């Protein structure tokens, strides 16, 4: 049996409490409203790589992010909002993962992704003393780090490189899977200084708008990587209800094909996008990872009172 004792020290939890109040202060100064949104919902995200936890017998899913209700608030005209609360993802447990974790997510009406990157940077400078972050497109990052163009390279080329880096079978992943392998094995370890990565391949758009670049279609999405840790994921948000409905349906079809559990599409979100939802950008940050960087620990367990192993 694991120990009953907390996995985080008292000092670590004291520092965590300060970080939480620092975050709230940051948003109060900018007049962004703190809201609480449901943890239990009748619908959920369809993302292929995020497994939801279902409450048996209740027909309710535990939230994997506060994204949908926050967007409904934005569409209802409530302005800039943020949520600082727990989210749940089945099976995500490890040194930097805990199946129940604290997420900070906020939406800025009228912002695009670059304005939101500036705000994320200001927050990290305040809370983590983060140095100035560079900004680089997904394509440039790959070309500069490993001389591979993630848009021009063929599926076979990416599979061969990914298989070489990982030892996985060349047929075992799809194109985006290999890009993830290449990124995590060959690029991420070299990212010591903070960097915003933007313009992801359109196939990794999730809920971001798609745009054309001279080298291909991109998702107007960004990530912040700092200290080798993926800290933030943001979008210039898709506001087209019909396209959102299509993306949900496509993902559910793929889920069914891969024998993965499916979830009800959030029709309230689709209706909200039709309201219409104003142009906006939103971002999610892992609060436990912020604490991990602040405390300079190697594991999330050291900044969480009780982790997956002894919760």
């Amino acid at each position, binding site marked *: 049996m694991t120990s009953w004792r907390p996995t985080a020290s008292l000092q670590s939890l004291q520092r965590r409490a300060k970080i939480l109040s620092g975050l709230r202060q940051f948003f109060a100064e900018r007049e962004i409203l703190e809201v609480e949104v449901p943890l239990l919902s009748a619908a959920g995200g369809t993302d292929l790589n995020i497994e939801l936890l279902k409450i048996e017998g209740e027909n309710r899913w535990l939230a994997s992010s506060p994204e949908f209700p926050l967007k409904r608030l934005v569409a209802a005209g409530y302005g800039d909002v943020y949520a600082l609360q727990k989210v749940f993802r089945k099976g995500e447990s490890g040194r930097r993962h805990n199946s129940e974790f604290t997420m900070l997510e906020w939406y800025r009406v009228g912002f695009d992704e670059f304005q939101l990157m500036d705000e994320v940077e200001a927050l990290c400078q305040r809370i983590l003393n983060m140095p100035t972050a560079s900004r680089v497109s997904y394509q440039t990052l790959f070309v500069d780090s490993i001389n591979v163009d993630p848009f021009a390279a063929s599926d076979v080329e990416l599979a061969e490189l990914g298989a070489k880096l990982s030892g996985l079978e060349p047929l075992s992943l799809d194109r985006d899977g290999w890009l993830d*392998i290449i990124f995590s094995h060959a690029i991420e370890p070299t990212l010591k200084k903070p960097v915003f990565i933007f313009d992801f391949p359109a196939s990794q758009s999730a809920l971001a708008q798609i745009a054309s670049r001279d080298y291909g279609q991109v998702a107007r999405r960004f990530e912040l990587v700092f200290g080798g840790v993926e800290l933030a994921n943001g979008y210039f948000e898709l506001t087209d209800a019909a396209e959102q409905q299509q993306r949900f349906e496509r993902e559910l079809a793929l889920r069914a094909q891969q024998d993965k559990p499916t979830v009800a599409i959030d029709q309230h979100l689709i209706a909200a996008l039709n309201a219409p939802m104003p142009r906006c950008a939103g971002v999610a940050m892992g609060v436990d990872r912020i604490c991990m960087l602040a405390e300079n620990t190697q594991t999330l367990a050291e900044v969480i009172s009780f982790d997956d192993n002894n919760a």
Partner: protein
Amino acid sequence: MANFSTNEFKGGLKVMLDGDPCSIVENEYVKPGKGQAFNRVRLKNLRTGRVWERTFKSGESLEAADVMDVELEYLYNDGEFWHFMDPNTFDQYQAEESAVADQKNWLREQDVITVTLYNGSPLTVTPPNHVVLEVAHTDPGLKGDTAQGATKPAEMTTGATIKVPLFVEIGDKLKIDTRTGEYLGRSKD
């Protein structure tokens, strides 16, 4: 044998990979927020001692390896096989040269040795960190030679050759570190 899924991987777990039994050294769960989840695993190949780094898709599994460590008494070498016995059950095991490999020159009859069994047969042997062996041959000792650090080779009765101080003579019993092959001192045993 059973299978272990990536979420059961932990240090010390014995699994089969590429036909060889391996011991898991480290298992790291990696998942980009919106991406594919996988596990980066370091495994020690128990046959060769080499450490491999491999990536698995989360949820993949590996077959368990039938590997266990036992304490056996070393009996003798018949020229082809090295023979060991379990002092409790008297079960005997024979090890091929590849299993005793670099360790064979540290094996003294009747010493208790850690033997790693794979499918019931010796895979590797690990002698105690410190052993006492007798000098079978060395150049005559130079009494009174206290020159700092001067050494000469000495061959032990088990076949190992180590560097010893000049005063060591044939028949001396020496304490030796088997991990480094270093002379530690003369033994009164």
